């Protein structure tokens, strides 16, 4: 069962997981861009000073060096705020990691609008779009601590470069210990027949809460954690498209080029037509506020998503 009382941040879970992995394997190294504190890696640095390498505020060099270390056999976690990592160093990601095929683990911290009122410079609402168009990089956004731990652990054995992004909000637990996590395979958190929410990262929780709210109104909702944005789990998506009456995608990303458009392409290709909406951040400079306030403002909340679901079902009835 889900445990909504739990409340560690995915970042803390990431840092603890990484420390455990690194203690067992001297080839695990972490690169930071003056991001040791924000990446919750101070304990890592104290425990394993030889396995953490500070690169300064220089993301391009950080990614290039990460590729070189990986080429020499190191298992490299390059940790930097998602906004800088995936924009400033995009060419290094494309050429030195993806094209040169060095399996670096790019860790985008404080992703999406986690930095809240710090504003647009610090938001990463472009990263899925930018990285989806780059060959040979998988994209993962874990929903909770369990998915975070599983994703980091799986990335160590993953043969390809991978980008994992996470926020810094305490996350309730949505999974159980028996949940199977596999890169590229979505997790269905609850089954339903009326509406499907396909959500990713920290938006899975509000989608789940919307489902609970709609349940009290007699609506049965399916909630899918599409933790791997690329490669997308088409099978799980197509089943949902065929078995439920409306489908809503939810992401902490621009509505352009993200997980929602990826889902739309798969559904259209397979001629599955149903009431459909992409919920994310619209094409505008984000309103000032905390992550929660921004989520509420753009309808990435239990109430907002429930309203979107009702509206889609009404359209379906009218149709």
């Amino acid at each position, binding site marked *: 069962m889900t445990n909504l009382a739990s409340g560690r941040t995915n970042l803390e879970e990431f840092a603890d997981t990484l420390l455990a992995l690194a203690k067992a394997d001297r080839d695990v190294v972490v690169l930071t861009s003056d991001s040791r504190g924000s990446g919750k890696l101070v304990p890592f640095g104290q425990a394993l000073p030889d396995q953490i*390498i500070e690169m300064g505020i220089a993301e391009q*060099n950080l990614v*290039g060096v990460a590729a*070189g*270390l990986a*080429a020499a056999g190191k298992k490299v976690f390059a940790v930097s705020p998602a906004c800088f990592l995936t924009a400033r160093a995009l060419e*290094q990601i494309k050429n030195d990691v993806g094209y040169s095929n060095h399996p670096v683990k790019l860790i985008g911290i404080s992703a999406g609008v986690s930095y809240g009122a710090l504003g647009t410079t610090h938001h990463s609402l472009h990263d899925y779009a930018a990285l989806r168009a780059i060959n040979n990089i998988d994209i993962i956004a874990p929903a909770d601590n369990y998915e975070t731990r599983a994703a980091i652990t799986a990335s160590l054995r993953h043969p390809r470069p991978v980008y994992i992004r996470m926020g810094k909000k305490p996350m309730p637990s949505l999974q159980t210990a028996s949940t199977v996590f596999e890169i590229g395979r979505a997790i269905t958190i609850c089954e339903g027949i009326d509406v499907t929410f396909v959500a990713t990262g920290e938006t899975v929780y509000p989608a789940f809460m919307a489902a609970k709210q709609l349940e009290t109104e007699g609506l049965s909702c399916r909630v899918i954690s599409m933790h791997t944005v690329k490669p997308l789990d088409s099978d799980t998506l197509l089943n949902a498209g065929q078995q439920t009456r409306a489908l809503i995608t939810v992401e902490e990303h621009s509505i352009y080029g993200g997980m929602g458009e990826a889902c739309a392409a798969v559904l259209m290709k397979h001629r599955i037509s149903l009431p459909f909406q992409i919920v994310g951040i619209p094409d505008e400079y984000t309103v000032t506020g905390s992550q929660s306030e921004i989520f509420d403002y753009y309808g990435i909340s239990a109430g907002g998503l429930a309203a979107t679901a009702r509206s889609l079902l009404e359209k379906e009835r009218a149709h």
Partner: protein
Amino acid sequence: MDTQELRRKSIHYRKTILQIIKRASSGHTAGSLSCIDILNVLYNHVMNIRPDNFKDSNRDHYIQSKGHSVEALYVVLADRGFFPVSELETLNCFQSHFVGHPTRKVNGVEHNTGALGHGLSVSVGLALAAKKNGQPHRVFTLLGDGELAEGSSWEALMAARHYRLDNLVIIIDRNTLQISGRTEEVMALEPLVDKFAAFGCAVQTCDGNDIESLVHVFDHLPFKQGCPNLVYARTIKGKGISFMEDAVQWHHKVPNDVEFQAAIHELDAAEAAL
């Protein structure tokens, strides 16, 4: 290999570079001629990189940051036995793995380059790994001068000194030209040696088109404990072909039949004079 034999190789390499560029009807002619003596000395005198030890992480490493001079690299790798030189006939052809910038699809190439300002960071990573592993090998990287306008090169230099990477050898192909003109007119680099020194490199200058000068400087590696080694190689773009030397239009110009014959004639004469 003695210096006379290395000189002979440089002439042969220049001929092959011109032949494959002529056949492909594309290539970076002058830049390849600029750096070919450096590559010759590195692969035939300095570095322990061979087809039979290429998978061994304890060998030296080479990253060509100025990826556009790929013809020079392919020609030297072929001569070193990484693949038959005849395969270079497919350079830039449909479905060939000999892409117009270095690619790991080609045996002997360690990293995909071509976008400028990348090779030094990757080399810093390789050198850092060697230090952490206690391995004695060295990492060599060749940079063009035009690419030094990319800020990432200077980020990487800071890190190289910060981590005291004296197992890193940075070679600057200082031919003073880039695609649209003199480096000093496009974006001034001077005083360049002072800049490298200020960033903590141990700098040695040499004539990058003179075999003895190159051999001499590389034989003195490492230059200074705790400092990245920087070989500041003064070169001439288009070196070896009189009408291509120091002429901006030859950056990626392909010789026509007359020019090609004239160039080969000059190289034949140079070989006869050895």
